């Protein structure tokens, strides 16, 4: 369990606006298996390291007597066979343990979980689509993942451009998103909480800014999030937001972004229907605050150089209006 890792002093208290990205959390089946294996591997490899160091120090300090070299050679021969046997035994044990852990994960997760999520990698953001097999309903969001605790989920992983890698350390596992291929990853969250994941395969200029916020919550909370997510976007509430709405619908914005319940239906960029309910913007680049929304909309290239969103060139009034509208997209 994670207790083993905590015992090794590897768990650090973390606070802040991000969820933790530590492997020691063990908030999913693979994460727990990893923690168990890490404890076992640390114990076995630590034991062998100790043997090497003790042997080395002994060799450096102790001097055999001149008249006993023949016995020394003989003892070294016996030691050699013992050492070789021990190494073989240790490696075999670790290989089998690794195999068993791998198969345990496969056995504990159903082949066809009811919850299916498609995650598509883009430079540099995550396109996330939930599908309800029963109702055919689809919920599209970006750079966030909400998962009910105790429910297996199958992620279908694809890429629109280069190779990315989906990795939420607390949940465990890591799987590449490869253009032209479809990879599957079945996860089983075991502990509620807020976690952070990050692209693990170098994917270009802003690889450092491709994070995903993961919320693992009780089933009720997940159902509420699901229901809210299916609802169309909140209409603009005040004149400023209405002006922003007009701008978004009539200018470049709508050709790339979808805001459900409005004419905006572009699929090149992230879905913005419930943008303001997310924890961060720009795939974890900034926390979701008014200031960062201003910065992003005013100059996307200044905020995250190289991303696909062009400089639109809004004047101050337009900027205030657009941000007012986006802030309302709860």
């Amino acid at each position, binding site marked *: 369990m994670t207790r083993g890792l905590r015992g090794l002093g590897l768990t650090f208290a973390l606070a802040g606006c991000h969820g933790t990205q530590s492997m020691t959390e063990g908030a999913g089946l693979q994460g727990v298996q*990893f923690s168990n294996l890490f404890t076992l591997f640390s114990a076995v490899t630590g034991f062998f390291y100790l043997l090497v160091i003790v042997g080395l120090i002994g*060799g450096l300090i102790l001097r055999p007597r001149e008249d006993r070299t023949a016995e020394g050679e003989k003892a070294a021969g016996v030691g050699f066979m013992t050492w*070789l046997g021990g190494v073989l035994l240790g490696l075999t044990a670790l*290989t089998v343990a690794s195999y068993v852990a791998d198969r345990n994960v496969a056995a504990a997760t159903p082949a066809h979980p009811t919850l299916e999520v498609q995650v598509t990698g883009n430079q540099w953001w995550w396109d996330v689509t939930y599908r309800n097999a029963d109702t055919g309903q689809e919920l599209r969001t970006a750079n966030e993942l909400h998962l009910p605790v105790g429910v297996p989920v199958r992620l279908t992983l694809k890429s629109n451009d280069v190779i990315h890698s989906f990795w939420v350390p607390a949940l465990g596992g890591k*799987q590449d998103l490869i253009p032209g291929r479809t990879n599957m990853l079945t996860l089983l969250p075991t502990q509620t909480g807020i976690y952070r994941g990050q692209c*693990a395969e170098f994917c270009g200029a*802003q*690889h*450092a800014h491709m994070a995903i916020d993961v919320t693992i919550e009780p089933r009720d909370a997940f159902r509420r999030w699901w229901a809210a997510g299916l609802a169309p976007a909140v209409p603009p509430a005040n004149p400023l937001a209405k002006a922003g709405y007009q701008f978004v619908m009539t200018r470049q914005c709508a050709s790339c972004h979808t805001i459900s319940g409005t004419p905006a239906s572009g699929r090149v960029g992230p879905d913005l229907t419930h943008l303001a309910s997310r924890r961060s913007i720009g795939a974890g680049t900034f926390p979701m605050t008014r200031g960062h929304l201003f910065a992003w909309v005013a100059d996307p290239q200044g905020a995250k150089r190289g991303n696909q969103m062009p400089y639109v060139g809004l004047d101050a009034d337009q900027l205030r209006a657009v941000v007012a509208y986006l802030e309302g997209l709860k």
Partner: protein
Amino acid sequence: MSEIARDGETLKGAELEERLARTWSRAPGLWGWITTVDHKEIGRRYIWTAMTFMVLGGILAAVMRAQLARPESGLISADRYNQIFTMHGTTMMFLFAVPVMEAIAIYIIPLMVGTRNIAFPRLNAFSYWTYLFGALLLWVGFILNIGPDAGWFMYTPLSGPQFSPGKRTDIWAQMITFTEVAGIAVAVELTATILKFRAPGMSLGKMPLFVWAILITSIMIILSLPSVALASAMLLSDRLIGTQFFNAFEHGDALLWQHLFWFFAHPEVYIIFLPATGFVSQIVETFTGRRVFAYPAMVLALVATGFLSFGVWVHHMFATGLPRLGYDFYTASSMAVAIPAAIQIFCWIATIWLGRPRFTVPFLYVIAFIVTFVIGGLSGVMVASVPMDLELHDTYFVVAHFHYVLIGGAVFPLLGAITYWFPKFSGRMLSEGLGKAAFWLVVVGFNVTFFPMHLTGMLGMPRRVYTYPADMGWNGLNLLSSLGAVVIWLGGLIFIANVFLALRRPRGAAANPWGGSSLEWATDSPPPPYNFAHQPIATGHTPLWDVTDVLPVMTGLRVDDREQLITTAIEAVPDIRYPSPEPTPWPLLSAIALAALFIGSIFTPWAVVIGAVPLAVGFIAWFWPKSPPSKEPVIE
């Protein structure tokens, strides 16, 4: 026949040495410098160049550590950082680590097997120039802000024409071609030298362990480099002439690159590591005063590592979604590589137990090697396991792992080997005091830099990020790593100062200052151009320790012509004579023509056609038969 001058009873001592020096010396001045085919001169040149690139790669590492010392640092941009980490990996792997191991072998192997020059010495000169031009291409590109920026592993499609427009990746791929040509050339020379130029009596079973390590390494280079040659050629043709090998949307396959690349790049790790084990074996032997324990087991461990290293490449690809059953095979083979490593570690420690260690600087580096490399080996056992690797892959844990393996496993032995052979290279001893100061700073700094990275990785920090948020819990560990890098650099500067201070002193090192057992210590420090006045004979595993007074020699080689003795491959029985080539400028001119062709081909495919003409001229002149032919048939 009597008019042909040969060494022997009538021709020996100072007169022989004077005539041999006339035959084997190169012309003085610049002309001699560029036409030389002496393995020692080219080896020294290779070592200087490769070490220069280690310093340059180290400067890049320091810049990265400066950037990562603080979160959200604005010191350098994402674009610059990505170029820097790509250049760091590429420089260290292709321009430093593999070439420096080959370089030391170029210098030491002919001496250690007791011959007058390396096999194919003109190819050796050609190899050096090719390597130099490839390295300059990469670094000039970087300085002009067209350095590669898609990682030293250049995964497609990120490195393809769509996502890496411009010339950056082309420069990288063509630099690979240069280093392939150079690397394979040296591997062929070393294989031929080891198999055919050994001193009489040095059967395969009596070769020093360093010679065994270089033989296995050279064969591995010959078998693995074609894979990356193919891959980089396919990448270039995707980028330059519109093929679609790696484009999934035109029925290519992005993963094909990874298979071809790692089929080379994993053996490459052992291509770097095995020569280092050879250094360790020689140093342990000399400074414990006895043969390395269990010689047959040591040789078999080298051979086994060579074999197994070709069966582990998929452990770089556990997250790519290949079939599970296949993963189990590669887990097992990756675990199995630990067995020969464990055998070697045991044998070295047993040798220390059975011998009488002398704590000189080279030996200290061996101790540091065991202490650090074993940590890297054991964390390697961790990442060989699929469920473990799926967490640890592409995190700072892996950065820590392979720096423990490559710095602990290869750079520490290398620094030890340079200290050990420095008198042979230069005729001067390095200072023990400065050497020890550098040793402690480098080893302590290394651990302060890289041990915390295990924890940074476990806390979730991925590799290859130019910055990170402030509240992830990574700040302190990253700052510690950066401070450690400062300490490594201090040690590195002292090491460099030690070298330059030693070079200012007059020559005075003895032929065998450490009391070594192998044949390179039988000749002067530095050796004369002809290496040995008489062809030495190896009577056992430790030729210099086996004889009580004078090393047995064979006589009868010509002294008025560059002649070497070829022996049989297994038993090293004298077989035939070999006329070693004279100095010539054509390897340099051919390398210039080749460089023009390679660099031109980045800009137009026609460069291959047009550039072939000067290259052909260079090769024809290079291989033009000697006229008149040698007076004597070479077969005895």
